[in-house]
C-alpha cells in the first residue's frame, strides 16, 4: 500500500489555526477560552472534529485536575501559616516562662519585690541572685523584699544561697528582707546551721512593706524636725 492510498483528512487552515490557538490558551491555564474555541470549531461533524472532541475532553480533565491541585496547595499554605503562627506563639510563651521565673517588681519608689513561686532549683536561685543584684543597681533601690510565701520546699544548698543573696544585697548598700518563710524552710535553714545574723525576716510581704513605710515615715519626720530646729535657731 503506497502512501498516496492512505485515507486523507482534509481540513481548512482556519480550523487548524483555531486548534493551535485553543491549545495555546490551555498552555497558560486559560481552560475556558480554550474549550470555547475547540467547541466552536467542533460544530462541524467530520473526522477532524473527533480530534477536536478528544482535545476538549483532555483539556477539561486537565483543567479540573489543575484546579484541584490549586485547592490542595491553598489548603497546604493555610496549614503552613497556621503552623508558623503556632510556633511563634510557642516562642513567645517560652520567653514569657523565662521572664516569669524571676519577676522583679518595683512596688514603691526604691523598693523592689521578688515574689518567688514554683520550683526553685540551684540554677534558678543563681539566676535570681544575678537579676536581683543587677536590678538593685540599675533602679538604685534601697530595699529588696524577697517573698518566698509560695515555696514549700528548697534544697538545703539552695536555701543557703538565698541567705547569701540577702547578704550580697546588703553589700550593694540596700536592705534585703526575706518574707513568708514557711516552717519547713525555717527548719531547713536552722538545721544546716546557716548564719542568720543581720538577716531580716518578716512573716509576710505586707509586713515587709509596712516596715518600709514606717521607717521612711520616721526618716521624713526626723528630717522635718531637723529642719524645724534649724529654722528656729536661725530666727
Amino acid at each position: 500500500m503506497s502512501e498516496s492510498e492512505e485515507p486523507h483528512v482534509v481540513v481548512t487552515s482556519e480550523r487548524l489555526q483555531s486548534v493551535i490557538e485553543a491549545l495555546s490558551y490551555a498552555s497558560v491555564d486559560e481552560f475556558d477560552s480554550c474549550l470555547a474555541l475547540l467547541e466552536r470549531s467542533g460544530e462541524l461533524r467530520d473526522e477532524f472534529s473527533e480530534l477536536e472532541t478528544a482535545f476538549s475532553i483532555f483539556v477539561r480533565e486537565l483543567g479540573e485536575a489543575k484546579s484541584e491541585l490549586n485547592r490542595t496547595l491553598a489548603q497546604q499554605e493555610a496549614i503552613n501559616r497556621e503552623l508558623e503562627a503556632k510556633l511563634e506563639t510557642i516562642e513567645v510563651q517560652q520567653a514569657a516562662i523565662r521572664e516569669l521565673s524571676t519577676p522583679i517588681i518595683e512596688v514603691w519608689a526604691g523598693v523592689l519585690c521578688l515574689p518567688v513561686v514554683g520550683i526553685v532549683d540551684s540554677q534558678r536561685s543563681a539566676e535570681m541572685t544575678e537579676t536581683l543584684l543587677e536590678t538593685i543597681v540599675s533602679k538604685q533601690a534601697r530595699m529588696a523584699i524577697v517573698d518566698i510565701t509560695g515555696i514549700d520546699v528548697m534544697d538545703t544548698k539552695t536555701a543557703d544561697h538565698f541567705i547569701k543573696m540577702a547578704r550580697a544585697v546588703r553589700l550593694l548598700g540596700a536592705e534585703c528582707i526575706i518574707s513568708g518563710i514557711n516552717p519547713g524552710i525555717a527548719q531547713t535553714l536552722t538545721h544546716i546551721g546557716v548564719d542568720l545574723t543581720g538577716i531580716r525576716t518578716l512573716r509576710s510581704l505586707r509586713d515587709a512593706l509596712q516596715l518600709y513605710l514606717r521607717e521612711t515615715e520616721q526618716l521624713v519626720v526626723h528630717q522635718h524636725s531637723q529642719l524645724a530646729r534649724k529654722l528656729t535657731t536661725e530666727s
Partner: protein
Amino acid sequence: MPSETRSFAIQGRSDVVVAGSQGRRFAVRHGFDVRRATELAIVVSELASNIVKHGVRGEIRLLWNSETGEIAVEAHDVGPPIHDMQLAMTDGYDDRGPIDPALILRRGGLGTGLGAVARLADRLEYREEEGGGKVLTAWFVAR
C-alpha cells in the same frame, strides 16, 4: 512494670520549667504529698537544668511503678559520661574537681545540682549506654 510513663524533651530553659511542674503533678497524682512531690520536682528541674547547661540533647522520663509504689525520674542525654560520680555529687564540684567560683557565676549555677539530687532522692543510679549517652535515675518512694 511501670504503669505510667511520661517523657519531656529538654532543649531550653522553658522545658526545664515545664518538666518540673509536670513532675510535681505526676507525683501528686500518684499519691505523693505536696512536700515530697515538690522535692521530686526540684530533682527533675536540677537534672533538666544540667542537660540544658551542658548544651546537649536530652530527655526527662517519669516512670510510675504501681507495684513498688515508686517513681523513677530518668535523665537521658547524649553528652559525655560523668567522669567521677562521687565527686560530681559534692557541692561546688563537677565530675573532675572543684569548680572555680568565677566559673560558677558565669555558668549561672551553684555547682550543687547533683548534690541536691542526691539529698532529695531515695536512691540514685547512674549508667552509661552502649553507643554513647548516659542515664541518671533518681527514685522516689511514695510514703
